């Protein structure tokens, strides 16, 4: 049985480089860093005082009364979803809302709400918001996105730490291929630049401590990398069956060829140093997409800038693609936007889709000296992609040993 073709017909994002897709993409192509030193009072006694916050506050975009009912996670998701929806041209197209699904992931959930209400509780239990639960629950962002457009097919929230965004896209793909929906708003959101996550990731020795040069902190593949930079934002893609998109004359950015999901079965936080789990995710994405390693001309790597993770992924890519890895231009957007946790896979899928659509790969910044254990063709400047049919992989891996790779191809 042939698989239902699924294409991307709309994109939306809010990131540390811009409040929409166009400005974020422009920032990536220009090699701009979204990192900065935090100046808030709460940051003063933390070991890590740098992050990559969004440049447009979601409360400036969302109506005031609605915004106060949404956790920051959901605010960011709604901003990105509105852009993706408008971009898709689905509004007023007569789409049957019972065929519209949602898959919006978050790594952490409504932590702002959790912490704020815990503070309120200490003061006076009656000050706990009656909306605390609907705001802090992990599915809140997916639910609010569904409410925004009246989506009545399945509404899902995959939670797999930093693989969540890609897993949401994989789940959206499945929903369409299983015939459960014609269109799925899929992606991820995360707004967790707060003292607790910064302190906790720092205690795991996962974060860069380059407080004095924030723009140089995130340096995937560089020999002097010392951890990741915490970012925030959201990315939403409109996934649509090719048939449905074609029938309404929609513009098509790219096709999702396949998704590959695997688990390391190794450790709760450390990546498997043999790269075997990540390798299997990429191989499954290729196999599901009927692609060969030679089709892959671009890899948007997970590459968070941690010492072990970047090496394990490089090894996994060599294992999955073999010699063909030499012809796949690799880039690491986290060098500019930091690590968006549950939104990372979604925002970087948007970058991958645009790279295929515009045939240009954004640079990886801060690679002063490529780590000699990294065997990839790293784009340190913008790189053109060839004409003709080509495919790309976007990798996302998460604490817990989750691996999610998505294979996209030109249409």
């Amino acid at each position, binding site marked *: 049985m042939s698989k239902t073709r699924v294409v991307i017909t709309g994109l939306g994002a809010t990131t540390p480089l811009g409040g929409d897709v166009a400005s974020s993409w422009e920032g990536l192509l220009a090699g701009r860093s979204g990192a900065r030193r935090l100046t808030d009072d709460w940051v003063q006694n933390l070991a890590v005082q740098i992050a990559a916050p969004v440049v447009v506050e979601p409360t400036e975009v969302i*109506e*005031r*009364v609605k915004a*106060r009912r949404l956790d920051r996670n959901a605010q960011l998701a709604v901003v990105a979803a509105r852009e993706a929806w408008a971009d898709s041209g689905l509004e007023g197209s007569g789409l049957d809302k019972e065929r519209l699904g949602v898959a919006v992931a978050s790594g952490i959930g409504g932590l702002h709400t959790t912490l704020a209400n815990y503070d309120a509780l200490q003061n006076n239990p*009656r*000050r706990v*918001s*009656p*909306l605390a639960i609907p705001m802090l629950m992990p599915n809140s962002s997916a639910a609010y996105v569904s409410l925004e457009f009246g989506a009545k097919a399945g509404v899902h929230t995959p939670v797999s730490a930093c693989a969540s965004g890609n897993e949401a896209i994989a789940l959206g793909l499945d929903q369409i291929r299983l015939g459960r929906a014609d269109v799925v708003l899929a992606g991820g959101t995360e707004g967790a630049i707060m003292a607790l996550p910064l302190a906790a990731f720092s205690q795991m020795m996962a974060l860069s401590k380059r407080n004095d040069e924030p723009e140089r902190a995130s340096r995937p593949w560089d020999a002097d990398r010392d951890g990741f930079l915490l970012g925030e934002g959201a990315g939403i893609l409109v996934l649509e069956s090719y048939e449905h998109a074609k029938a309404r004359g929609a513009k098509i950015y790219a096709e999702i060829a396949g998704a590959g999901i695997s688990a390391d079965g190794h450790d709760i936080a450390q990546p498997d140093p043999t790269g075997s789990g990540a390798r299997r995710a990429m191989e499954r994405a290729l196999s599901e997409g009927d692609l060969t390693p030679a089709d892959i001309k671009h890899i948007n790597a997970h590459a968070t800038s941690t010492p072990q993770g970047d090496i394990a992924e490089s090894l996994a890519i060599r294992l999955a693609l073999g010699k063909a890895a030499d012809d796949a231009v690799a880039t690491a957007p986290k060098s500019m936007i930091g690590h968006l946790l549950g939104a990372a896979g979604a925002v970087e899928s948007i970058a991958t889709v645009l790279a295929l659509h515009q045939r240009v790969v954004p640079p990886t910044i801060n690679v002063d000296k490529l780590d000699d254990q990294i065997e990839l063709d790293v784009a340190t400047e913008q790189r053109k992609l060839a004409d003709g049919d080509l495919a790309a992989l976007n990798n996302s891996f998460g604490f817990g040993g989750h691996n999610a790779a998505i294979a996209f191809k030109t249409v």
Partner: protein
Amino acid sequence: MASTEEIRSDLAEIVNEIAGIPVEDVQLDKSFTDDLDVDSLSMVEVVVAAEEKFDVKIPDDEVKNLKTVGDAVAFIERAQNG
């Protein structure tokens, strides 16, 4: 002691802040649910904010009797005078 109009006006600010209802719509004869579309969870927030603003206690049992803005203003007046 605050006048009926002062209480109504302050309450209108609270309802506006929480539910986004224009302050001029929050009049004594208006029903919170039927006229102003304040849902039950927003009403909980309005009650807590009103308790703090007017320094009164509004027991949970009492909230169901506060159907209109006028009911709420009258309750607050009685509570402040009591």
